[in-house]
């Protein structure tokens, strides 16, 4: 096996002798002491074996001197192959290009895998990294990861820690986001809790600081609810990070108006789409849906249109992601048309909008009482609701300690 491999790399030549000359040929071979391999006997009884390129020629000369007839086959192995194709420059160019591509592909980032993020999306983090020159397609062997991580942390205020590690050509980005309000709770700053809107206090739950309001107090937006500045003795002051819940009765209104005559968006033509291949972060525009190479922007220039972008990554069977994305941007031109609808249709539309707003309201407050009116006035259907709700109106307002501490 090893000898065969060496024979391939250094080149070899087949030699065969007739069965009648076998003993004499072997005797010559023994005297020469040339390393041989691949010894075999053919169906016609000829004995064949392999010798090194130069040894084969010398062996043939020695055999001729001893009166033994040998047959030399053509050279085989890598040197012979290279000699055969030495004038095929295309092959050489292709081999060099292949070697360069393989070499280069091992130095660039093929994929970025982000983990540990909650509030930041994967795309947001990869986009921020790309601003510092790191992303799919960048040469990671030139990347100073310490500098990259520090620069990233300076930019992303809500990220407490980041680590970028390369595993092969995949960049594993691990992040740790700051906890909301976590910085203040560490004791480095102080805060008050103020009212986010007008209301009448129902309950005060203090987790930090000292309550500044009582139940049934009426407060205005911005009023102090829980103070983070605690007086100690006559002249002393202690700062805390005030926190808590302040439940209050607040007034909310929902006002939905749907006119009977409306401007409506009507899409005019078939949609146009433009495909772009993103290869290692480099964009290559391909073709439009019509098959005409070029941009479809010209076809809808000067008209209003909706556009949407969909990006899809190529994934091999087995879940291996390739650094190739197909980005499809779809354009849908439209015109505004005036359309009249019946009162029932307008009411149905108003009701649908009203329900959506009510769901939004219920998600942030508890309704205590509700007054609703439905009326038609000035060519429109109107649904109006006034609700008394129970809501948490506490909002944290941080205090700059340097300013507060100043006399």
């Amino acid at each position: 096996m090893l000898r065969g491999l060496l024979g391939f790399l250094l080149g070899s030549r087949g030699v065969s002798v007739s069965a009648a000359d076998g003993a004499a040929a072997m005797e010559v071979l023994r005297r020469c002491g040339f390393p041989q391999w691949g010894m075999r006997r053919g169906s016609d009884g000829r004995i064949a074996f392999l010798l090194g390129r130069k040894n084969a020629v010398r062996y043939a000369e020695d055999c001729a001197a001893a009166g033994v007839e040998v047959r030399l086959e053509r050279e085989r192995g890598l040197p012979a192959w290279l000699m055969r194709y030495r004038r095929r420059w295309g092959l050489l160019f292709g081999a060099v290009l292949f070697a360069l591509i393989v070499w280069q592909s091992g130095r660039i980032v093929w994929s970025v895998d982000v983990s540990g993020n909650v509030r930041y999306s994967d795309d947001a983090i990869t986009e921020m990294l790309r601003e510092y020159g790191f992303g799919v397609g960048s040469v990671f062997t030139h990347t100073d990861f310490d500098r990259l991580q520090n620069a990233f942390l300076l930019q992303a205020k809500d990220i407490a820690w980041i680590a970028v590690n390369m595993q092969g050509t995949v960049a594993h980005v691990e992040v740790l986001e700051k906890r909301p309000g976590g910085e203040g709770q560490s004791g480095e700053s102080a805060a008050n809790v103020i009212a986010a809107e007008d209301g009448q206090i129902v309950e005060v739950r203090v987790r930090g600081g000292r309550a500044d309001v009582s139940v049934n107090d009426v407060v205005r937006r911005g009023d102090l609810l829980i103070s983070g500045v605690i007086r100690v003795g006559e002249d002393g002051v202690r700062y805390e990070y005030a926190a808590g819940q302040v439940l209050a009765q607040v007034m909310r209104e929902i006002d939905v108006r749907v006119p009977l005559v409306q401007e409506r968006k009507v899409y005019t033509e078939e949609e146009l789409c433009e495909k772009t291949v993103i290869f290692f972060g480099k964009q290559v525009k391909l073709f439009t849906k019509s098959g005409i190479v070029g941009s479809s922007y010209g076809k809808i220039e000067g008209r209003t249109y909706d556009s949407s972008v969909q990006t899809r990554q190529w994934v091999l069977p087995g879940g291996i992601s390739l650094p190739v994305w197909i980005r499809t941007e779809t354009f849908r031109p439209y015109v505004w048309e005036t359309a009249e609808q019946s009162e029932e249709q307008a009411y149905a539309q108003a009701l649908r909008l009203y329900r959506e707003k009510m769901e939004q309201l219920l998600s942030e407050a508890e309704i205590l009482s509700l007054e609703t009116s439905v009326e038609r006035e000035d060519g429109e259907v109107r649904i109006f609701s006034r609700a008394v709700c129970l809501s948490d109106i506490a909002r944290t307002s941080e205090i700059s300690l340097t300013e507060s501490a100043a006399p």
Partner: protein
Amino acid sequence: LENRKKSTGKRLGGAAACVQRLFDVPMEGVSSLSTVELIGDREAVISGCLGILAYGENEILLRMKHGRLLVTGRDLLMESLTGGRITISGQITAVHTDGGSESC
């Protein structure tokens, strides 16, 4: 399965024989005699070969330091010749020397 048999030449030299007997060391360590190693009946490794006298599918005759060695069998093939060491493969049925014979 390894059946190793060793056949020495006709005689040991005087000094070498004395050393071998005195210290009870292996014979090939103190003598320059030819050796034949048989691995089952599939391969024979012969050292101390001075020439190839006949080479056929059924018998190979070698000239050794202390006479001649005949290997008989079927599909015999010299796998390698390195210096004075020859490897013969095939179905080996017998190994004969000039002074006597050993069969397997």
